[in-house]
């Protein structure tokens, strides 16, 4: 966008949100060039709407000017979902962070997209209710972002992912219309399930401005167990054994040897340092049943090779066990200056062989790979450790990531379980979908967004389905840029 165009657009956007909430200062643009992925790209303008109507007007103005729009709230995307890869306008939902209604009668809450996930559950707690999807970043990520990526979390094994908890949406269409879709307060709606299609569409169809979510009663008791295994294969087989007994825990998390060491160094969760793998299992229930389920699971764990099983005796012990898991990614800083987080899925029964293959990749390439993941649903999060200051390492790590995703797809799984395709995996999506599959998805996208201005450059591979190449080549990590010359150092 040239300077005159930018000034004209900025002036129009300021008419909508006021002087303070639309800006284009180059220094400030740098704050909005990145998310939690390694990708970066500068927007031309950043705008902070305060209401749904303002969002709709902004989208309309951008549509008329044929300028791309990229939505953003907490920017915790690990897949580059909020990186404005074609420049244009970044719409950030920081000001739209209100819980609009808590409706216990109808088991619903209504929120704006900028509400932090955990804040909703905290607001519901006094009533004895909560919002079930709990991404590990729930203290930072927003429900709007969760809707965009159809986010999961450790407890989705039993309660499902975001889409299972979203009843209706208000969205701003690229045309500038505000539409309410879905059941809102009632469970079902007639017509096509537009809500279901919009959830997980990563902002490529419309911008979500209001969300109707289901809420549910807090479980009376949560029993949390830690089971210690000699290796990940034995632990993986134990996971399948538990599921086969008919118990579906609320969560089954696994951490491998390297992760345990990092976690223990960082948070002293009490995981044994000599363990090859640790499983964290949790069941919800009424006290007498949860206690019994805990004991039954402990027995299955022992029968399937656990050297030690520890049941948290109180909430404090439970929180300590979870603290390690939830802080796992940040603990990786103890092992390496940089790490690359993957998000593949395999059928639960394919965990042992997939983990063995990942191990072989680590051996072959010399890069350490940690595994901290949602074992219950086969959702792997291999973390490849590297040093971005070493020339060539980042490229090598991307190649490893590609190989791991291919493995997951070949095992009958998927290239993303909860982080989204975003910018990062838009080529990898071909491992799970044919051109015919993608062509139908593209048709659906164009129904909403005929001019491809909504979060362009995401999800779809660059095979002609895209109108133009990204302005900045993907795979240009921030720290490499920093190493190349202090100029591009992000703050």
């Amino acid at each position: 966008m040239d300077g005159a165009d930018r000034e004209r657009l900025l002036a129009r956007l300021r008419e909508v949100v006021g002087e303070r909430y639309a800006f284009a200062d180059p220094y400030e643009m740098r704050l909005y060039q990145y998310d939690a992925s390694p990708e970066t790209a500068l927007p031309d303008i950043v705008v902070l709407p305060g209401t749904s109507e303002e969002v709709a007007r902004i989208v309309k103005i951008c549509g008329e000017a044929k300028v791309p729009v990229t939505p953003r709230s907490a920017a915790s995307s690990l897949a580059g979902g909020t990186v404005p890869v074609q420049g244009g306008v970044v719409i950030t939902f920081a000001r739209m962070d209100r819980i609009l209604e808590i409706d216990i009668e109808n088991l619903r809450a209504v929120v704006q997209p900028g509400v932090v996930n955990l804040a909703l559950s905290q607001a519901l707690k006094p009533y004895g209710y909560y919002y079930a999807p709990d991404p590990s970043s729930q203290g930072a990520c927003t429900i709007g972002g969760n809707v965009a990526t159809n986010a999961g979390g450790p407890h989705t094994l039993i309660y499902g992912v975001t889409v299972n908890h979203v009843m209706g949406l208000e969205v701003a269409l690229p045309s500038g219309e505000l539409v309410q879709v879905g059941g809102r307060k009632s469970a079902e709606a007639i017509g096509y399930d537009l809500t279901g299609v919009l959830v997980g569409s990563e902002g490529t169809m419309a911008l979500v401005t209001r969300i109707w979510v289901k809420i549910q009663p807090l479980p009376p008791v949560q029993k949390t167990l830690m089971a210690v295994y000699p290796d990940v294969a034995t632990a993986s087989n134990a996971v399948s054994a538990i599921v086969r007994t008919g118990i579906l825990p609320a969560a089954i998390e696994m951490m491998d040897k390297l992760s345990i060491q990092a976690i223990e160094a960082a948070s002293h969760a009490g995981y044994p340092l000599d363990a090859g793998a640790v499983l964290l299992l949790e069941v919800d229930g009424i006290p007498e049943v949860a206690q019994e389920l805990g004991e039954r699971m402990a027995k299955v764990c022992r029968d399937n090779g656990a050297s030690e099983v520890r049941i948290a005796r109180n909430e404090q012990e439970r929180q300590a066990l979870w603290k390690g898991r939830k802080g796992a990614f940040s603990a990786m800083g103890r092992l390496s200056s940089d790490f690359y987080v993957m998000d593949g899925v395999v059928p639960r029964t394919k965990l042992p062989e997939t983990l063995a293959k990942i191990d072989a990749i680590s051996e072959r390439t010399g890069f350490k790979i940690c595994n901290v993941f949602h074992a219950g649903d086969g959702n792997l999060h291999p973390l490849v450790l590297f040093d971005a200051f070493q020339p060539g390492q980042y490229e090598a790590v991307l190649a490893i990531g590609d190989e791991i995703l291919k493995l997951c797809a070949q095992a009958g799984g998927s290239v993303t379980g909860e982080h989204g395709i975003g910018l990062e995996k838009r080529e990898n999506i071909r491992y799970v979908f044919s051109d015919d599959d993608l062509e139908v998805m593209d048709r659906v996208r164009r129904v909403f967004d005929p001019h491809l201005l909504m979060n362009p450059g995401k999800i779809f591979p660059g095979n002609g389905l895209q109108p133009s190449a990204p302005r900045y080549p993907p795979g240009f990590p921030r720290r490499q840029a920093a190493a190349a010359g202090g100029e591009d150092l992000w703050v």
Partner: protein
Amino acid sequence: MGVRAGTTVLPGHQITLADQRRLSVDDLLPSKIMHPADAEDAARGLRLCDLTPASVVIWGGGTQMRLGAPPRRYDIAFSTERMTRLLEYEPADLTCRVEAGMRMIDLQAALRAQGQRLPLDPPHPERATVGGMVAANTNGLGRARYGTVRDWVIGIAVAYPSGKVARAGGKVVKNVAGYDLMKLHIGALGTLGVVAEINLKVQATPESEATVLGHFEAATPAVAAGLQLARSYLAPSASIVLDRRALWECGLTADWRWTLALKLEGYAGEADAARDQASGVIRDAGGRVEAADLPPTFWDAARDWSAPDGDLVLLRAIAPIAALPNLSGAVPPEASVIIQPAAGVLDLRVTPPSAAPTLQRMRSQAGDEGQVVVASAPASMKSSLDVWGPPPPGFPIMRALKQALDPNGILNPGRFVGGI
């Protein structure tokens, strides 16, 4: 929308008179039949229909063919009767992949052999197919506890009029790659494509089960008791409020006017605890708890009740759960009714003469957060009933989606919302 010339030769096989009658929809008869062997075959068949163009009505088990507006045209009966295979099933993964024409009863039997089940219970499982359940979004009585079809379908293969088979989702329980097109096809009545294969999550069969009946003199306290239980942690897996006539239609009699029937399921010990809780809530609401054992056919009859045959019309109100007491007040005395308090669903069986006035009254009572549809009606009633009601918000997008995926309008033309 394509218009077919009168002399065009239709694709498909010759159809017998018996099949023509069996596969009639709202008194319209098909001219030809197609019964593809698999997804690819289905797509080839659709391509031929699209080129002609010939309009297609998709048939599974036929249990929901009384839903929807009459088709605008009906040339080809497109039957999934040959697509009945269980393609994959790994019990330890709690997932399976089936062809659309597989009957629910056969799927449940295969799962039961491994101690598992699909916790969806559409009416008439001995005829209903998995594909039909998906296309019609047929949810039984377990929806408040276990969710609806959208919560259990993890992937699909769809045959489109373009002649292509396209997939979405996958075989794993957690997957956000690409658009969730499963949602688009669930409840679309096959108007966007023919769902040919379905990947499902399944679950372990509950370890314990119990039923509790609570009898009441009025609907409101029965619904209130159902709601209170729905908001509790040990929510029933089925919770229905029946009037005396509906109870009789399900094979039971009672001296009381209203009955709250609760199915309780869970791990060992949970059903007992839930029974104690439910009994307490019923008593507190002024009801009488009946402990007598029920005939095993009761829950099956209650499940099938919402898909009646003959002249009966079934109206379904879907509303915010807190609006149900008010809505149940609008039920005319001659109707029989089953309310699912926890799901916000109220089903009414009425006879043809009172169908139209009742529909109108229910719609005005439902308010702007609720809706009332005709879930089942004989052909003779369809012309006098607006079966879907006014198009929902976002309808222009729905019409555009139809145009994008079925540009010649060959798939179930006219049967869906707003004339789609």
